[in-house]
């Protein structure tokens, strides 16, 4: 396997909530080869974003607590570097795109200031040079008339344009790893396609690796090389995108795929939803947390959490039955 840009081993993110412990991330291991895209898929609250927040040191501690074996980014353990070092990495070598472009830009700052601030924090270049770079990046992400738009405030941009600004902000320092946290969820479908295409193009152009956090399997298909499916704070299945789409092993992955409309399906075929709700992370059921919603659950599923079975290079599943 080629060199890994990110390798997370057994990461935990816990929150103290009114006396109980909420295990938002409960032993997650993921890895991503350089230049590739990993999609982290799961329902809301499955710990997708929290995994990334944990690695990047964005979890407020307390009430949060982040621990684990290691989170190696380019050979450096992010769980053990100083906060200062982590801040230098953020925005420079690892950048993040947020879900909602309507709230992720400061309404009081012009686009120029938001962009130059990132450059100033990391490159120590003059305001003028930073402005020139910001303009260049705005042009690259397809903002028309950037010379005029750069001096405007976020509220003068549409949702799609704001997301382009967010992308420009994230890519300014040409990060080695780009974390896109549901980058298209708040956008309508035509804009979604544009933004995804833009991300794909820029990723190839800059040679970045990308982690794409999403709950939309439609976004995963065609954009990701690898997929990690998360449920209740754990990775339940890992593999290449082809393996996950063509031969899903975990009943949860199968359920997710069955609930997505397909163009190649017969007309009358019904979508099958997964029954029930994800469990409360402060009160996870014993054994496999998915067993309460699983059609294939057996007695042993309640007894213990299934061992993670390794089926090949980067192919893993955590299920007793599969």
């Amino acid at each position, binding site marked *: 396997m080629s060199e890994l840009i990110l390798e997370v081993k057994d990461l935990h993110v816990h929150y103290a909530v009114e006396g109980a412990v909420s295990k938002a991330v409960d032993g997650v291991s993921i890895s991503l080869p350089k230049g590739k895209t990993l999609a982290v898929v799961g329902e809301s609250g499955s710990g997708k974003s929290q995994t990334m927040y944990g690695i990047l040191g964005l979890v407020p501690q307390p009430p949060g607590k982040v621990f684990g074996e290691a989170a190696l980014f380019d050979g450096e353990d992010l769980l053990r570097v100083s906060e200062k070092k982590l801040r230098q990495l953020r925005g420079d070598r690892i950048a993040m795109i947020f879900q909602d472009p309507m*709230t992720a*830009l400061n*309404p*009081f700052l*012009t686009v120029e200031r938001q962009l130059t601030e990132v450059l100033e924090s990391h490159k120590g270049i003059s305001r003028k040079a930073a402005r020139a770079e910001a303009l260049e990046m705005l042009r690259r*992400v397809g903002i*028309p008339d950037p010379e005029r738009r750069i001096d405007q*405030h976020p509220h003068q941009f549409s949702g799609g344009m704001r997301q382009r600004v967010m992308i420009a902000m994230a890519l300014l320092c040409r990060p080695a790893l780009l974390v896109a946290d549901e980058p298209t969820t708040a956008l309508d479908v035509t804009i979604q396609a*544009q933004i995804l295409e833009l991300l794909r193009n820029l990723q190839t152009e800059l040679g970045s690796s990308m982690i794409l956090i999403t709950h939309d399997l439609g976004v995963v298909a065609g954009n990701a090389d690898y997929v990690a499916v998360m449920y209740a704070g754990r990775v339940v299945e890992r593999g290449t995108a082809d393996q996950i789409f063509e031969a899903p092993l975990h009943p949860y992955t199968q359920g997710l795929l069955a609930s997505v409309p397909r163009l190649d399906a017969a007309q009358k075929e019904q979508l099958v939803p997964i029954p029930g709700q994800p469990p409360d992370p402060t009160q996870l059921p014993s054994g496999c947390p998915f067993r309460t919603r699983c059609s294939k659950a057996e007695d042993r599923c309640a007894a213990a959490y299934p061992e993670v079975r390794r089926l090949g290079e980067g192919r893993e599943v955590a299920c007793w039955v599969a």
Partner: protein
Amino acid sequence: MSTDVIQPRPPLLEVDEPLEEIEGTSLWQDAWRRLRKNRMAVASAGILLFVVLFCVFGPWFVGYSFEEQNLAYGAQGASGAHWFGTDLHGRDLLVRTMYGGRISLLVGLCATAVSLTIGVSYGAISGYFGGRLDSMMMRIVDILYTIPFMFVVILFLVLFGRSLVMLFVALGAVSWLTMARIVRGQVLSLKQSEFIDAARASGVGHFGIIFRHLVPNALGPIIVYTTLTIPRVMLEEAFLSYLGLGVQPPMASWGLLVSDGANAMTFFPHMLLFPGAVLTLTLFALNFLGDGLRDALDPRMRS
């Protein structure tokens, strides 16, 4: 390496109207332009400017000094010689109102400066870092709150001697407490915003986040509270002066003139009317200007 990125479609409708309204400008230019459109705010700024000039340069043009007494003359209503009339000691009220304005405006300015620098930074730092530091910093504020204001001022004046400077220090020392609480509250809710996460994720340092991202977003309440602080400290100064701890006769402040006037209003209403009118005018102007500033500084308010 391909450089083509998908271009958004051209707008369906070209608007002929010049797009001056959305021409990019800095926050301050922008705010200035919007402030100028607010007639009340412009009028208030004009009045304030006039009052400042009136107090600073006015005494040069009046042929009396603030301490020149004419006991035989006594309190007289407005006349050609004394536009605002005279007080019980026969001193010209116009020139005393001007001198009083210098003190009152200085007190207001000083308290504003302290509450804006110390109060805002203190509250923002406390709210941003949270946790134990926040508890500690806020308990300090609580403790300062519980110490009676008069006690602090008397202590200051006894320890360091009575002077105008000490009066400013004493008023400044208490004027930032509420501001710190207000800003902390704002920051506590603002720091949950996604744009703060985004700033942190792009590696912006604590200082940048506090003063570039959090404080500007709390400007509305800060300005409103500042416009409330100025009249309050002016009245506190009057109270102190009344007790003999602040400005001493023959010096004057608006507060002192108003309280003198209130004592004599049964027989000499002009002694309350003129200083009171100037004080009220100033406070109204400050409030309207504050409202205008708040609206002008919020980029989202632009219609």
